[in-house]
């Protein structure tokens, strides 16, 4: 009897261990690669960036280090609402508490409960987050019941990947190398959507604004300076009005809001857009990184770092420059010649 019970328990235990191994085997490795340096304990960051793909594509931490020596990580995620960014920040602060948190406000008008269609994109971040109670709390707070399991145990959605391997249709969920420190370099040019700048403000309260306030409070609890930022893109007027209204929150909460739409001559949508609707290509990203770097450097003040930390960043920088040269500057030359 005792032997039979031991047999049953052993079988179940082995089965669960096997499932955990399979989970690791089928997990997409690209998200882990993207956040490889973030979830390692042996680095520290002065600045963390939060928000959507706009900030993910517009700020290159390696460029910030190259120009200003700022050590930062970009935690922007595709189609991430501010409600989700709040939890991203909560998870991030468990690993690194920076001096400054830069929050992209592009999705101040979006609601998490209306974002079901874009939830699968969150795998680009959550696949890399190690299991913890904070992660479990996040998953239960953000995602609908039928989509929770896949974030806690990705085998639920990835066990069918054998089919992609056999058919050769496997594609990454994000295109990012570890040396980009969370940012994505999207090379290409696109004719932008028509853009008309407006100063109008839509002060309606949204879940995004509520989440933004929560993020500011979370920063303060952790002694982090919050900086709100509006990344420029050919946004429709209604979206601009909503983003403009963040100035009211910034005033109320006494935090800085850098609305880059208002910085004249910073971005030329005709040359700096990767796709028609929004995202910036390396030209645009380098300009935004430079502008933000100037501001952040003053806010951070004097900084020192260990020798091995510098060596680490130098390695990232070399790889970044190599990629920038091959993927962008060499492509750009014939493009500019055509112009």
């Amino acid at each position, binding site marked *: *009897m005792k032997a*039979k*019970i031991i*047999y*049953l328990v*052993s*079988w*179940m235990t*082995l*089965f669960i261990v*096997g*499932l955990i191994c*399979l989970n690791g085997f089928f997990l997409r490795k690209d998200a882990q690669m993207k956040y490889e340096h973030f979830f390692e304990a042996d680095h520290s960051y002065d600045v963390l960036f939060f928000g959507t793909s706009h900030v993910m594509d517009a700020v290159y931490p390696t460029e910030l280090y190259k120009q200003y020596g700022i050590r930062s990580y970009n935690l922007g995620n595709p189609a991430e609402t501010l409600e989700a960014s709040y939890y991203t920040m909560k998870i991030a602060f468990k690993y690194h508490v920076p001096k400054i948190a830069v929050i992209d406000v592009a999705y101040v008008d979006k609601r998490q409960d209306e974002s079901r269609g874009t939830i699968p994109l969150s795998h680009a971040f959550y696949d890399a987050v190690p299991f913890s109670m904070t992660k479990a709390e996040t998953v239960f707070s953000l995602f609908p019941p*039928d*989509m929770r*399991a*896949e974030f806690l145990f990705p*085998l*639920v*959605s*990835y*066990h*069918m990947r*054998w*089919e992609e391997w*056999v*058919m050769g249709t496997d594609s990454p969920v994000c295109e990012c190398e570890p040396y980009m420190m969370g940012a994505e370099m999207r090379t290409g040019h696109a004719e932008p959507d028509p853009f008309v700048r407006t100063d109008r403000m839509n002060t309606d309260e949204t879940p995004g604004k509520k989440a933004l306030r929560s993020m500011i409070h979370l920063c303060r609890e952790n002694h982090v300076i919050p900086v709100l930022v509006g990344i420029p893109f050919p946004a429709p007027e209604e979206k601009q009005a909503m983003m403009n209204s963040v100035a009211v929150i910034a005033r109320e909460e006494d935090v800085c809001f850098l609305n880059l739409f208002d910085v004249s001559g910073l971005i030329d949508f005709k040359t700096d857009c990767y796709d028609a609707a929004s995202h910036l290509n390396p030209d645009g990203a380098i300009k935004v990184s430079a502008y933000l770097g100037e501001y952040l450097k003053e806010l951070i003040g004097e900084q020192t770092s260990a020798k091995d930390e510098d060596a680490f960043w130098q390695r990232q920088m070399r790889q970044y420059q190599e990629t920038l040269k091959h993927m962008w500057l060499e492509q750009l030359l014939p493009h500019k010649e055509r112009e």
Partner: protein
Amino acid sequence: MLFTSLTYLPFLLAILILYWLVPAPRRRVLLLAASILFAAMLGIQCLACAALCAGIAYIGGRWIGKCDNQIRKRSLAICFSFAMLVPMLFFRMMSGHSPALPDWLAGLFSGGMTGQNGFLAPAGISFFTFTSLGYLLDVYHGRIKAENRPGVFLTFVLFFPHLTSGPIARGESLLGQMTEEKAFDFEGIRDGFSMILLGYFEKLWVADRIALYVNFIFEHWYESTGWQLLLAILLYTVQIYADFNGYSLIAIGSARCFGISLQDNFRQPYLAVSVRDFWKRWHISLTTWFRDEIYIPLGGSRKGNIRRYINILLVFLISGYWHGTGLTFLVWGGLHGLYQIAEILLDTENRGKNRYFCRIRTLVLVAFAWLFFRATSFQMAVQILLRIGTRFIGSPVSTGMLPTQWAAIVIGILFMLLVDGFHEQGKRVLAFTDRKPWFVRGAVMMVFAFLLVIFSLWGSGYQSNSFIYFQF
């Protein structure tokens, strides 16, 4: 909670551990609590409806059991049977309609339901109604004594492995098992889990994969070729078997883990040599229910040939109606009735010498009837038949389904054939492991379980089809 939901196995495991840990007298109470929770998770309406049915059957059974007057007994049986059938008939009649309900009523009928088109019925209503009705009629006919412990009776009706899609339990075999004190049964648990694994294989590997093709073709029948439609009908024949047998295996296996035996529901039906033989092997719990409660009381074959044919036809028309209200279900039932009458008239069971020919003939007849079962209208079924006759062009597999899916379907069907072939000869597929050491048996099961995890259709990348019989 469906058997295919991610929560079912952890739920089963948790209840199972508790079941074998608590003292024997408390086990039934635990089963009742688990069954109530399971029903509530399907929808509070399901729980309410099942409890109502059980309540009527319990009171009716007690009343009939105490009654000595035969006429009064009969009147009571009719009244209580009718009362029990009212909810099911109500939902049957409303099925397919979208009535303008007042808000409060619409709210009552909005969650945890299943059904066709507009109006939804509580999950498993036909099954728990027939379980309760069967008990009442068994008491009336004196086959069993009325159960006087309401808790035991409620556990019998709500018992979660059979609640939503059977096998339809009979009081005679199950009521006694509910109160039996059982010793820890290792072999029962091992066999139960083997059955559950095989059930998941048939459902998630075979049935749900075939469903991708069948659903696509039946949704686009008007632009599908004859080959595609023919293949879809044949594959549906496999799908419905894999789906329902898969469900039954999970149900029977789950019950087995608790030391409770449920009636077998399938016995290699597609190896039947005649349609009559098919019905001795297909959905056995329902077929025996109809035989005991309708066919035999109507006179069966005791009142002459004409009456026998009428009884057969009537039973199968009722069976069609039990499955759904549309004309298609009546045609399906009617066809099976007519097939059997023809078999009796032509004496095919004694004439057919070649078993393989008989099996293929039966399979073709059954597959033809499944077309009406699957089609959403009679006109659609007729149009599909006309199209099959006129448009034999192109390749049947050109629907955008990946070659890997087809390969998995073929492997799945071959494995099912192997399993059924073994069972037909009274052997088990895993018999070769019986004399091997315990770790070899464990390893074989483990490999099968991991193959299922990797190659079955489950999880969020794929929305599992709910069990076909869940809607009945």
